[in-house]
């Protein structure tokens, strides 16, 4: 009477790391992407210790040094920039800012936008309308203007740059979260919780939020890429991160004038950005495949029965 009937699938939910790893190894592209990201992240964390202050060491006599030569030491293997600083070193140090800023921006906008979206979706009160109007405003507020205002009033700093990027991405999370909530709050288990006397706070936090989170996370992966790119666009317009701080985006922006004469200055950071965003997109695709029970089998072993 209480046998688990055969048609019930085993859990492939959270907490089954080994399974995920197995899935990863089945998708070579995703595996490569994961590897790349891992490298970049490690570089971002430990790299600076490795290269020390090489990233800011001037070499005015070896400006725009061409890449692929060891004569000045391995650190110059990718060439030198307009002040003769080793590009490799700057890539490594820049990774910290680039990934750091993007991560911070995405995380905070996901947090705030998600929270606002939960409220706006669950409640019918005036403030949820206010939130929506706010989203509209932010959505049509030119990010450049915002960047300039923040730059001028708060001064150039990494934290402020994060604020700018985070605010501009807010609406996406807000709208997604809200849309999900609108659907979820009609779900039976929410009614069940209400009929048991659960308050709004509990319902939102315990019942709805956990189900909204995955889709927010999926977006954030792609958004991470978007943020890195728009950060570099800001640098291009001189509204992004300000020297002596730098990111990959800023490196590309500074090197753009040399594309004709010393391509490597803008190329390497450009490549890094591309690989990072590419990897993120690939991984998020992979994640979507796993999340979808209809597609999951594509990443499974599919052992056939003996004929």
């Amino acid at each position: 009477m209480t046998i688990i009937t055969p048609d019930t699938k085993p859990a492939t939910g959270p907490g089954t790391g080994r399974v995920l790893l197995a899935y990863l190894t089945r998708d070579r592209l995703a595996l490569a992407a994961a590897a790349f990201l891992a490298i970049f992240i490690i570089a971002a964390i430990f790299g600076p210790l490795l290269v020390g202050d090489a990233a800011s060491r001037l070499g005015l006599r070896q400006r725009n040094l061409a890449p692929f030569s060891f004569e000045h030491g391995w650190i110059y293997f990718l060439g030198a920039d307009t002040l003769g600083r080793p590009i490799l070193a700057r890539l490594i140090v820049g990774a910290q800012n680039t990934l750091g800023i993007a991560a911070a921006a995405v995380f905070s906008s996901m947090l705030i936008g998600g929270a606002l979206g939960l409220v706006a979706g669950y409640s019918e009160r005036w403030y949820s309308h206010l939130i929506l109007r706010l989203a509209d405003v932010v959505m049509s507020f030119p990010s450049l203007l915002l960047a300039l205002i923040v730059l001028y009033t708060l001064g150039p700093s990494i934290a402020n740059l994060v604020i700018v990027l985070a605010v501009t991405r807010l609406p996406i999370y807000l709208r997604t979260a809200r849309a999900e909530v609108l659907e979820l709050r009609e779900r039976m288990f929410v009614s069940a919780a209400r009929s048991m006397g659960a308050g709004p706070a509990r319902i939102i936090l315990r019942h709805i939020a956990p189900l909204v989170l995955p889709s927010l996370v999926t977006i954030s992966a792609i958004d991470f890429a978007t943020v890195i790119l728009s950060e570099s666009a800001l640098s291009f317009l001189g509204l992004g991160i300000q020297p002596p701080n730098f990111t990959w985006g800023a490196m590309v922006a500074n090197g753009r004038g040399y594309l004709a004469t010393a391509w490597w200055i803008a190329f390497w950071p450009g490549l890094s950005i591309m690989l990072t965003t590419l990897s993120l997109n690939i991984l998020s695709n992979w994640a979507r495949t796993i999340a979808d029970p209809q597609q999951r089998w594509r990443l499974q072993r599919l052992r056939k029965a003996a004929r």
Partner: protein
Amino acid sequence: MHRTSNHALASAMLMAALAPSAMAQGAAQEIRIVLPEQPANLEPCGTIITNVGQILSQNVVEPLTVIDPETGQPQSKLATEWTQVDPTTWRLKLRDGVKFQDGADFNAAAVVFSVNRMVGGKITCSNIAKFGDAKLTVTAVDDLTVEIKSDKPQPILPTLLSVVMIVSPKTAANQAVNDPVGTGPFKLSTFSPQTVVLDAFDGYWGKKPEITKATYVWRPESSIRAAMVETGEADLTPSIAIQDASNPETDFAYLNSETTAIRIDTAQPPLNDLRVRKALNLAIDWEGLAQLFGDDIKRASQMVVPGINGHDDALEAWSYDPEEAKKLIEEAAADGVPVDTEIKLIGRNGIYPNGAEAMEAMMTMWQAVGLNVKLTMLDVADWLRYLQKPFPAERGANLLQMMHDNNKGDAAFTIPIFYRTSGNYSTLADPAFDKEIDAALATTGEARTTAFKTIFAKARKEVVADIPMFHMIGYTRVGPRLDWKPDITTNSEIPLANIAIND
């Protein structure tokens, strides 16, 4: 309408008669010029703004006098001769037979109108700033003579007059215009967000330029401007970045009138200590830094370029001596100067090519000699708060990246603003020095020149209120079709009349 057609006819006949060569090239000689940025407007009163002046000056509108690039002395343009009646009054004879592009006659009335339009305060007039706070009154003596009075002595009024652009009396007097009408060899034909087009003005009083039509476009990216000239999409671009000036055939370097420097805030410790200020100058690897700006760059020892009245070639620049710098700082520290306070190095985005890199480099060098310098790059408006008085109260010890452009031939446009206590950029407060400056400004001729030289020498050796960097080099790219060389005035004007076409 009828009138103009007559004009056309007349000029055509004229050409046919006495210029067979002109006839040959009468076939439209059009050129395209690509500028770095779009001219915001075409108000003749704003010709000292680079992108306005490069289009209008001496093409559409002409001043009373022009400055000779070599000597820095005023030459006649619409004014043929001038005499100083008394210290505050000058009398000018005007050129005869000059017509505006709208057919109006050029005469004393026109000059009066133009000057009043400038000083009237009804429109935002950048050029008038060159006169400082002087109050000008202009009166017509006869049809071709005017007297210009000033409320204080104006020894170099003829030089100043080079910014007084004469416009047709029909121009709106109380609002800025985008359709200037002057006496120049070209008249404005279109001004769209994409192009400005100038057509030759047949009724021009002077020598006919070879060029019959000039189209101006703008691209912010230096590499693209260079590419456009290379591919023949444009014939000339007045400025490209050094790294794009890769082709000796087409790319010319020229000493533009700009001088780059770092201003030291002498009011703030530890910068109020002379030794520290000297150390700042000694700590920079000038040759290395020069790499950023190209081989033709000229090391600066003072804030004006050669050819400006008051420039002293003998005055030598600071050399690179980090040891000495360290020593000076140690001494200062020994005397209790707080040398380890953080010094803010304030740069400005896009102030000149490689400006940011230069700041980064200098910061690193100063850190190398043990000064705690921190770089912040600001947007223009933000940067201006630090440049101009009143300075922000909370500014603290700071060094300011700046670039000074004096192409008006006389150090009077430089010294007071930088070194006089009242100077708009000056951090100094030295009554003695002020007296010296006032005295110099009052004098004329040789005395004036020597006086200025001594002031620059003092500023360099004893006061050390700034860190002169370089007299900047501009790079132009000129297409093979054209025969033209840039000079010190190229930053403010590109007279199409001086451009010849290679056949």
